[in-house]
């Protein structure tokens, strides 16, 4: 199984753990990731919020390079995925759009190379049996609130799962031996760049997510998006302060959990890089299995 890999800007900085754990997970599962050489930023929400054509053209260059290599593109970041998918669909649905985009990027792109969400590949393409067979440490003690955010499954044409009650990530966590909770904020927006630009609004949006997850009995959140993780992880303390409430809710990338279950060293996955301490829960999981303790 070989994919062109588009990590996106976040994964080389704020989302470094996502990149690390993605590569580890792919290695175990035998997925060959070929990083698109000299890929450019997809423009994420800023392009999309600013100019329609630009928002399609930026991802198109990356997709074009992948198409030259004859590969579909695996994309971990939900925002990058949504933008790239939108480009793929725009090009395949309209010959006019295809031409305009090709003129703008000065390359050929026919929509043959498909944008694929990494979660979709790992949770849905790979048989859960194959995943289970690679599990070395069952994730006993993980009670995850799987948080899909808004971009991964919306709108319907882009999403690969149900927009109101998606299950891909839940099923994946379950095949790793963890538990998941049924909760209501799975696909509610985390505020995207809102917490940076409009902190008060942003905090309120986050507060509801933490509260709902906690009330549902979760002890951690799992995401597939660096923007979501940053908001949920980095700002959790701020929100706790503002609402005088303790959540203590480590936030994982789903790839960190696969990596962990596949027996990868936690530091190799970047699990020590989180703002809300994740190692406590990680160690509990490892211990529960009678495994070793890591610092």
């Amino acid at each position, binding site marked *: 199984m070989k994919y062109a890999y588009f990590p996106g800007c976040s994964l080389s900085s704020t989302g470094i753990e996502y990149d690390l754990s993605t590569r580890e997970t792919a290695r175990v599962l035998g997925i060959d990731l070929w990083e698109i050489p000299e890929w450019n930023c997809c423009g994420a929400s800023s392009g999309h919020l600013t100019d329609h054509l630009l928002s399609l053209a930026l991802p198109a260059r990356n997709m074009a390079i992948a198409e030259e290599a004859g590969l579909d593109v695996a994309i971990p970041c939900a925002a990058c995925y949504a933008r790239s998918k939108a480009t793929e669909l725009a090009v395949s649905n309209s010959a006019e759009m295809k031409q305009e985009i090709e003129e703008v990027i000065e390359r050929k792109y026919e929509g043959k190379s498909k944008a694929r969400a990494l979660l979709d590949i790992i949770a849905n393409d790979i048989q859960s049996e194959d995943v289970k067979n690679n599990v070395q440490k069952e994730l006993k003690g993980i009670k995850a609130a799987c948080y899909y955010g808004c971009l991964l499954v919306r709108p319907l044409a882009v999403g690969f799962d149900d927009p109101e*009650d998606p299950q891909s990530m839940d099923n994946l966590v379950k095949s790793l031996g963890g538990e998941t909770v*049924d909760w*209501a*904020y799975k696909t509610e927006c985390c505020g995207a760049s809102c917490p940076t630009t409009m902190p008060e609004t942003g905090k309120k949006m986050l507060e509801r997510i933490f509260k*709902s997850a906690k009330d549902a009995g979760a002890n951690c959140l799992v995401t597939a998006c660096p923007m979501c993780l940053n908001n949920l992880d980095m700002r959790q303390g701020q929100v706790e302060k503002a609402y005088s409430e303790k959540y203590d809710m480590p936030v994982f990338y789903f790839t960190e959990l696969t990596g962990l279950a596949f027996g990868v060293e936690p530091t190799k996955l970047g699990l020590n890089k989180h703002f809300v301490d994740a190692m406590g829960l990680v160690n509990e999981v490892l211990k529960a299995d009678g495994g070793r303790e890591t610092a």
Partner: protein
Amino acid sequence: MKRVGVFVCHCGSNIGGVVDCAKVAETAQDYPGVVYAVDNKYMCSEPGQELIKKAIKEQNLDRVVVASCSPRMHEPTFRRCVESAGMNAYFMEMANIREHCSWVHSAEKDKATEKSCDLVKMAVAKAIMNKPLQKATIPVTDRALVIGGGIAGIQAALDLANAGHVVDVVEKEPSIGGKMAQIDKTFPTLDCSACILTPKMVDASSHPNINLITYSEVEKVDGFVGNFDVTIRKKARSIDMSVCTGCGVCMSKCPSKVDSEFEMNLSKRRAIYTPFPQAIPNKPVIDRDNCTYFKTGKCGICQKVCTLDAIDFTQEDELVVTRYGAIITATGFEQFDHSVYGEYGYGKYPDVITGMHFERLINASGPTMGKIKRPSDGKVPKNVVFIKCVGSRDEAKGKAYCSKTCCMYTAKHATLVTEKIEDSNVYIFYMDVRTGGKGYEEFYNRTREKYAAQYIRGRVSKVFKQGDKLIVRGEDTLLSRAVEIEADMVVLATAMVPQEDASKLAQKIGIGYDKDHFFTEAHPKLAPVETHTQGVYLAGACQGPKDIPESVAQASAAAAKVCGLLSKSEMLTEPIISQVNESICVGCGLCVPICPYKAIDLKTISERDHGNIIERLVADVNGGLCQGCGACTVACRSAALDLKHFTDQQILAEVNALCL
């Protein structure tokens, strides 16, 4: 050569004041075939008609053209007139020189006269080509079929039976009663549904003219108005109806329990059951899919306990064919399946229920004995949220139309919550409140004023569980603020949709249905209970969302129409129908889908061809169904179809006459 007589009418000065009628008559003398032409003050008057009759005899006429007013006015008059002189009625043609000439060209007398001449010439040309046609008679079977035994079907059957006609009611469930049997109280008066429905059910079952054929379905419909041959499948009941007394012992002993459809799965029934205690007929059926005996061959307890030996596991479905003069479809509706609403929990939250669940919850004989308890934990809810227009008025997930009854039944439910639960709060999310009907607006206002229901204008965006509460989030569009309610129970006013198999039934009967699969009426205003298929009528919610008063009114209207049809032993059929020239029909079938009345079928004929018998397909027009529109004639590339009285030849003769 035909002998045509032309009669030009002055209509007092109506025509004569503009058109030079004498000149028209004189000109007509020269038209091919015309042997006699006169003008007269009033053709439709006694003397005018006498003039025609006399001329027919004296001039030995075999065609008559009357140039006068519109045929929409006096065609029947002149047809009768020539008929009484022994001529075939269809040998008479009219030229409309009043509405289409003198009245619209009053200032241009010469031109009007010239035009009148042309119109007469066209009519003469057509008349010469006319063929004698006879109105045929077909026998009418004095027996009606009602499909569906809800309130609409019951009402129609009672009206027909009281008028002296024999009626069969086919109901697919083990009992008649329909949705009204499930409803607790009825708006706008809040009288108890059972109190007004069950007497009607009993009347229907005891009426000597009514046969209830329950647990049965229509399999096939052949024939046409007056003579429908209907095949009915009587599903095996596994009970000998002639022996069973309905004592109910079997039902109490049956060990196999399943969800009760009648109780909206809120309680259980047995595998041998009647849907509800007042069922009619009050004799059980065995639900074979859930009976242990039918699944494993073991059990048979019911058979053992039945002292009358009424249980018969060997019964088989029975097909009966009966002839009916008319059919009323009254198959009603179903509730929209709201599990497509992910944002309302995909139908997974037990405390998010539909209006019909709610009816069962407040019904004194329902699963909770009329105490409103929420399904998840049996707690009495304090905050109840109603969401209207679920599935209705929602093009993205449901149906574009308004279901018409839910505004009213939601108001009803709100009053009942407030009456039954002390300190309860009712919130109703609505987009519009539609209360067209006598006493309806007053009812709604009482709900707000006296029962203090909170009406919130907005569509709910999401319902989700938080602990044991359901959080309902919507916008109060009048305040432009998002609002949230912590509800104990949420009731969805789900859309009324036709029965799942409605389109299939429509195809069997040969009636139309709209894109939502409601049956289509012949005309939305002036023929609301008729269908395009003569002899088939509609009643109740199968034609579109309707409440009980409307369903009953429509049922009585349909019954009146059927009475009109069945009151005579024969009916006349219009002879202006399409005909197939079998010798040139190639059996391509292009005409078949064109006919809006499904009057054309292909049939096989045998022919002698050089001494061999060969079989081939040809089109066959059913005279009972054809309405004479002529659409098929144009579709036929072989020109094998023609419309009587408006044949290609006749129309071309008119065209030629105009031009030469």
